[in-house]
């Protein structure tokens, strides 16, 4: 697990830090028009000309406006993208070059209210997040491969989202984009068309579906009419040739209908590009709602295996995310993806001896101590 934000100590700032988003670089890179923040390690030569310097050691002299990095952010490296507060006292890591997954938060507003939401909705104006997202995209290193776009519900800001997607198309056309959305806005044919017309080469929308009928799905997302709009959104996207992933969070309420949901997808939505069966992250609303949603993953392997087999037999690409290998039925290992973001994954002490540790994503640090009772090292 790595920290994504920390307190910095400004050194030699003459005014506010502007812009708010910077890409970290080494001294070997020549300063360009981009806002480049030069990393300075102990003993490094000082190369002049950068708009901002990030000091890792307690250097006395600074070549320009500088911020002293906290030890928590010692992991910063060239290629990372950071957000800097105007007063220079807080640095947030927005993009980590070395990370397997990077996501950009676009809004905290949402029109669903899922029982297990890991990013509880906040109803305040956060349009600046879209602006920041555009800056991040502009600063991505050319080695960037993929980017997640998350919320809240990004499609609530239709114009800003389309604008951002067009920016991606124009600035980083090679980037593989993964947009998380509840899909409801795509039930509006006009919006779905606008989305398709952006013409991105590689974008997939990840849409949660929690039950094969509106009753349970609407209950889980706490929004009447959500299932109807979500499925129609999926249908519209498919008819426009857009890539769709269905995401199913496996929790107490979805386990009893997992097989039925797999059958429903196989029969009604077999054209989706992927189904992701996701382990529950015990954070956000999942904590107060724990009695409604928590279930030990080791206890639902039969249902998970059955659902996976049904989908795979029907020709639907299936992946299992956020499950530790020791609680997964071994027949499901081929479908398991090491997926917990490295800023929030960790291993327990008992994992040290595990022979498949490197293939395993570990546990969510955000889940605290709400973990399976059945975690154990697998000894060969």
């Amino acid at each position, binding site marked *: 697990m790595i920290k994504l934000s920390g307190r910095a100590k400004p050194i030699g700032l003459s005014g506010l830090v502007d812009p708010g988003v910077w890409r970290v670089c080494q001294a070997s890179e020549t300063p360009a028009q981009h806002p480049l923040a030069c990393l300075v390690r102990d003993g490094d030569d000082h190369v002049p000309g950068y708009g901002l310097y990030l000091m890792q050691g307690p250097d006395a002299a600074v070549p320009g406006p500088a911020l002293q990095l906290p030890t928590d952010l010692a992991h910063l490296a060239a290629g990372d993208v950071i957000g800097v507060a105007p007063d220079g006292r807080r640095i947030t890591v927005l993009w980590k070059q070395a990370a397997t997954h990077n996501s950009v938060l676009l809004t905290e507003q949402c029109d669903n209210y899922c029982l297990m939401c890991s990013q509880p909705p906040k109803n305040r104006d956060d349009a600046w997040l879209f602006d920041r997202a555009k800056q991040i995209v502009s600063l991505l290193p050319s080695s960037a491969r993929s980017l997640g776009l998350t919320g809240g519900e990004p499609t609530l800001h239709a114009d800003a989202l389309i604008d951002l997607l067009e920016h991606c198309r124009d600035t980083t056309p090679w980037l593989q984009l993964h947009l998380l959305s509840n899909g409801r806005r795509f039930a509006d044919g006009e919006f779905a068309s606008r989305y398709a017309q952006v013409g991105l080469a590689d974008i997939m929308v990840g849409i949660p579906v929690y039950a094969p009928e509106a009753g349970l799905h609407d209950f889980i997302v706490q929004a009447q009419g959500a299932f109807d709009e979500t499925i129609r959104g999926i249908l519209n996207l*498919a008819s426009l040739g857009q890539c769709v992933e269905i995401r199913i969070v496996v929790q107490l309420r979805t386990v009893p209908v997992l097989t039925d949901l797999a059958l429903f997808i196989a029969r009604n939505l077999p054209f989706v590009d992927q189904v992701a069966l996701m382990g529950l992250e015990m954070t956000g609303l999942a904590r107060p709602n724990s009695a409604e949603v928590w279930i030990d993953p080791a206890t639902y392997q039969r249902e998970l295996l059955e659902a996976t087999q049904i989908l795979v037999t029907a020709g639907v690409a299936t992946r299992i995310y956020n499950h530790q290998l020791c609680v997964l039925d071994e027949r499901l290992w081929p479908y398991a993806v090491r997926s917990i973001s490295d800023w929030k994954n960790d291993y327990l002490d008992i994992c040290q001896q595990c022979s498949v540790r490197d293939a395993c994503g570990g546990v969510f640090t955000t889940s605290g101590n709400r973990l399976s009772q059945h975690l154990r090292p697998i000894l060969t």
Partner: protein
Amino acid sequence: MTADVEPATITFDRATVELDAVQRAAYAVAATMTVDIRVSANEYVCTLFPRDAGADLHDLQHQMRSEVIDQTLRVRIGQQTEPLRNLIFALAFSQTGLADPGAPES
């Protein structure tokens, strides 16, 4: 030539049973009996002629009665769902349905 067995008779109240259901029931039981249907003021009178000389008449009456109940259900379901059935077929063959993903390739 004809069975020596006496035919059985059952009646249905016209107020609660539709002729359509009685006729469908007669068709459905044709393997074991042929049914003659007559209409009186407030009843359908059905005469049941067994195909098998050794047939139990009570069984035949049960069979016909059950079949009328089932066919009545079918007529009722058909009536209730006809508007939706028409809508579904119209949607299936319309060019401008809300969603038309094309032929999902399997």
